[in-house]
């Protein structure tokens, strides 16, 4: 019965130490590569334009971001919801 007590009182949120680490990692990725939000938006628009030749994407929902993948490594991660393929793209 006493074993249950800590569980009852434990807060169900993530430890703020971990939140701080995660926020720092993300902030530092952008600081270190020195990319402006304008550059990221330009990249996003260009990707939508290029992909639109092949498929119909939900432009509002396209998200492009940099994420840390290691101590000194960064990956460009894009989430691009596709509505449908374009007919002429399928024919080729």
């Amino acid at each position, binding site marked *: 019965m006493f074993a249950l007590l800590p569980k009852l009182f434990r807060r169900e949120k993530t*430890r*703020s*130490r*971990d939140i*701080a*680490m995660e*926020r*720092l*990692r993300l*902030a*530092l990725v952008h*600081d*270190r590569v020195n990319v402006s939000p304008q550059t990221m938006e330009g990249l996003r628009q260009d990707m939508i334009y290029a992909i639109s030749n092949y498929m119909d994407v939900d432009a509002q929902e396209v998200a492009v971001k940099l994420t840390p993948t290691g*101590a*000194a490594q960064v990956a460009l991660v894009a989430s691009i919801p596709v509505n449908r393929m374009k007919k002429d793209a399928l024919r080729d």
Partner: protein
Amino acid sequence: MGEVIVITSGKGGVGKTTATANLGIGLALLGKKVVLIDTDIGLRNLDVIVGLENRIVYDLVDVVEGNCRMKQALIRDKRYESLYLLPAAQTKDKTAVSPDQMQRLCKELAQDFDFVLIDCPAGIEQGFRNAIAGADSAIVVTTPEVAAVRDADRIIGLLEAEGKSRPRLIVNRIRPQMVKAGDMMAADDVKDILGVELLGVVPEDEYIVIATNRGEPVVATPTSAAGRAFRDIVRRMAGEDVPIMPLDADDGGFFGKLRRMFNAKEG
């Protein structure tokens, strides 16, 4: 030739000046000949922290402009035989000194002193450029907070771009209980994120407030936890192999407290 070390942080209020004062006095207590330079022109503070504010006649800008000789501007601390202070000017601004002039000044001082410690102003503008110009290496001070660590990362990038490679890190104002509860980043977390060598960890200590009020930095106070941490750091700076003690949140109960009381009396 002595070592010229800049103490910097990017963000203000993390304990740069307090650290500079404590490291300087700590090294002097080890018998090293030390000079502290305050480069925060217009906002000088190091003199107050060390408790020498009443003895300033000439300052850094006077030396650079040739209004006095170096010897006239250096204030010798009567409490610690081998400690000197070169104060910042209070009525000028950062443009009164150039990086070239700082380089020459540091080179001159390194002839006479074992350690030349430069207290850097907050920010990344000219005051920062001046402070790092003459330094051989850097100590970066930060606290375990997102904003301070982020600024420290910027500073480390700028230092490396200026060829001040391998800066060493002091994580200041750690609260062991909060780290244990998962509500504060640990010194190792900060070290891993910044990817630099950890020089020391200084716990939050109310005694710092008292020491600052008195103008007598904590490094000379045997019972202060922060003082103990600074004493370990200066021994590392002097080349001794001193392990970084884990700051234990658990005080060991009644017997732990009793044991420490006796240890403090012995020490």
